[in-house]
């Protein structure tokens, strides 16, 4: 009996030991956290398998877990050959040494819009082949505000008038404490997140403490304290709900909202940001999702073929139509012009601020968010708070980079 148990235990150990190697089946492995786009990508991949005879194994991972899962799995040779993710993973995964720069054969060419390639470039090298991009725009309820505002002050004046006429309606509503939604106004006044030196990101050149950024922060405070447009507690979720219920005239949101906006049946238009009071052009942050190549990819040659297929004009048009996020290749952009919303988002993105791929940008979001909260609730003057925040961010970046 005892011997039998021992044999059983040994068998168990052996099978546990083996199972890790059976994971390396002879197929290209692809991990993605995309949700709305997943069925289309599945179709595109099936098409690829049929055409080339190369086996592909896809795994859908919850988006917020995917980056760390890859970061742990890849060094242990358990990672996929390819992973689809946004540009801010590029700097993190490349710094950790887990990505191979995109090889010459599939390098994004001239027909990719520059902002998309800029966003996935890290330390002078391209680490991702862009599939689509996303950024914020103004969603306007065309019943409540029939005309497109000429400028930001014009927008504020109309929004205030709408709200005064009917207090149950929000004139202009967004989460102004969240740097992602506040950034268009900072960029319009000349602020920057991380500067550049010799074509590379300079992580110590943080541009949130200057006269422009103070102006932007004061403008945001005026939306809350003077015009009473955005009370504390505003969130992206609430802005969406208000808009879909027809209780907000203008909100700031991204292409992920298009589907719900259409379904809600509220007459709307997607507008680019008009210039601010100082004449500056708001340039929202542009996120770019693309395919990255594992440095230890087991099926590199086949993986490159799959990149080529996924990033093709046909595939990216299909992916765009599924999600509302604009594609990045000229040929694909021409083919989505019949959808005015996607076309508008594409136009805004092309003039947007590429979201930095450098990991140092992670040191900016939390402190900047606190600063925006303190400034827009009148607890701290803009210049004092931004200067202190700038100092704190630099210390953090110093810590990160040593």
């Amino acid at each position: 009996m005892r011997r039998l148990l021992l044999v059983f235990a040994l068998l168990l150990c052996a099978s546990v030991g083996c199972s890790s190697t059976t994971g390396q089946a002879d197929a290209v492995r692809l991990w993605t956290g995309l949700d709305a786009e997943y069925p289309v990508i599945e179709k595109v991949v099936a098409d690829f398998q049929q055409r080339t005879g190369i086996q592909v194994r896809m795994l859908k991972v919850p988006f917020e877990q995917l980056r760390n899962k890859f970061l742990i799995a890849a060094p242990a040779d358990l990672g996929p050959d390819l992973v689809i993710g946004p540009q801010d993973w590029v700097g993190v995964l490349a710094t950790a040494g887990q990505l191979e720069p995109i090889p010459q054969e599939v390098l994004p060419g001239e027909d990719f819009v520059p902002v998309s390639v800029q966003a996935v470039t890290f330390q002078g090298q391209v680490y991702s082949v862009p599939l689509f991009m996303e950024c914020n725009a103004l969603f306007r309820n065309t019943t409540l505000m029939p005309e497109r505002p000429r400028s930001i002050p014009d927008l504020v004046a109309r929004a205030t008038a709408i709200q005064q006429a009917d207090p149950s309606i929000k004139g202009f509503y967004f989460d102004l404490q969240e740097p992602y939604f506040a950034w268009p106004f900072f960029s319009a006044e000349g602020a920057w997140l991380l500067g550049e030196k010799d074509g590379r990101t300079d992580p110590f050149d943080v541009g949130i403490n200057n006269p422009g950024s103070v102006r932007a922060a004061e403008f945001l405070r005026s939306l809350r304290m003077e015009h009473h447009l955005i009370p504390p507690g505003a969130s992206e979720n609430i802005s969406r709900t208000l808009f879909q219920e027809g209780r907000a005239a203008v909100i700031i949101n991204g292409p992920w909202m298009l589907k719900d906006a259409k379904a809600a049946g509220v007459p709307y238009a997607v507008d680019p940001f008009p210039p601010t009071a100082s004449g500056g052009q708001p340039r929202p942050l542009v996120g770019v999702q693309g395919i990255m190549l594992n440095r230890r990819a087991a099926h590199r040659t086949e993986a490159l073929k799959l990149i080529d297929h996924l990033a093709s004009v046909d595939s990216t048009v299909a992916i765009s139509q599924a999600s509302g996020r604009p594609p990045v290749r000229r040929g694909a952009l021409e083919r989505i012009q019949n959808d005015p919303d996607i076309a508008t988002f594409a136009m805004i993105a092309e003039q947007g601020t590429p979201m930095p791929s450098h990991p140092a940008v992670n040191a900016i979001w939390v402190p900047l968010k606190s600063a925006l909260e303190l400034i827009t609730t009148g607890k701290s003057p803009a210049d004092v708070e931004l200067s202190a925040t700038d100092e704190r961010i630099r210390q953090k970046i110093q810590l990160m980079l040593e």
Partner: protein
Amino acid sequence: MRERDSGGLPYLYLAPALLLLAFLSLLPNLYSVWLAFTNYSLNHYSDYSFVGLRNFARILQGPEAATFARVFAWTVVWAGASVLLSLGLGLFLAILLNNSHLKGRTFYRTIFILPWAIPAFISVMMWQGLLNTEFGAINLLLANLGLDQALAAVVGLFTKDPVATPIAWLNTPGWSHIAVLAVNVWLAFPFQLTTCLGALQSVPSDVYEAASVDGATAGLQFRRITVPLLRSALLPVLLSSFAFNFNQFAAIYLLTAGGPAVPGSEAGATDILITYSYKLAFNLFQYGMACAYAIFIFILVATLSGVNFKLTGAFEDAN
């Protein structure tokens, strides 16, 4: 015969459990202790090395050492108040539910267990909506009952500034402390309720009968019979809930993300040590430093629990 047979067999039976324990608990913990003494971070992802006590020195001497003290004080208040309030509510309801004259006991029990059955992540998000300043059900209810002005006026007597209505539950210091505590008590009381009910049911009813015959009032029975008999069952539970609440990441992070912001500091008003260290270290891929924080928090919890053990003599009866 029994003696001879037992040889190594018990160990073999224990082996799977011990192996699992070693791989799932012991090794990861030892590994994180080791990492706390290294510079393991994004920039040293595969080439990290031993740096001695540097991570610990940074926590204690960092530019935000003063913040650390403030956050630590609130963490102790948070964990202590969470345990006491949820126990108080749990015990109160348990005594009511333990009364055999109560009709529909099963129904009430089910209702009260519900907060426990819903995943905390979901209920915390739900509370975030309920507590929203402008659209939240709580403020709408208070306003409709005309209670918001009254509440603000009463609280305003004790504060320097007049209290604004509607109340910004999650966005003002003070209110946000009350809000996170209330939500955490709501999350935690079903556990205390169940424990108390179980312990109460083990108290033989003839003890109470004898006390009644002797003319003891309900209050006296509670103090002299219920509390002493529950003590040995509840103290270990209390200490472990204290440790659990000390590291109750989800309730804070999902409800306020540590906010509202405090001028001149990285930590928000409701940040506890674990959420604060997440912002400082893990968010920035400083894994070594994050491990050092974890060890620090472990030492703090262990010390506080040790003091508690001594003061309350928690396991005396068991020994």
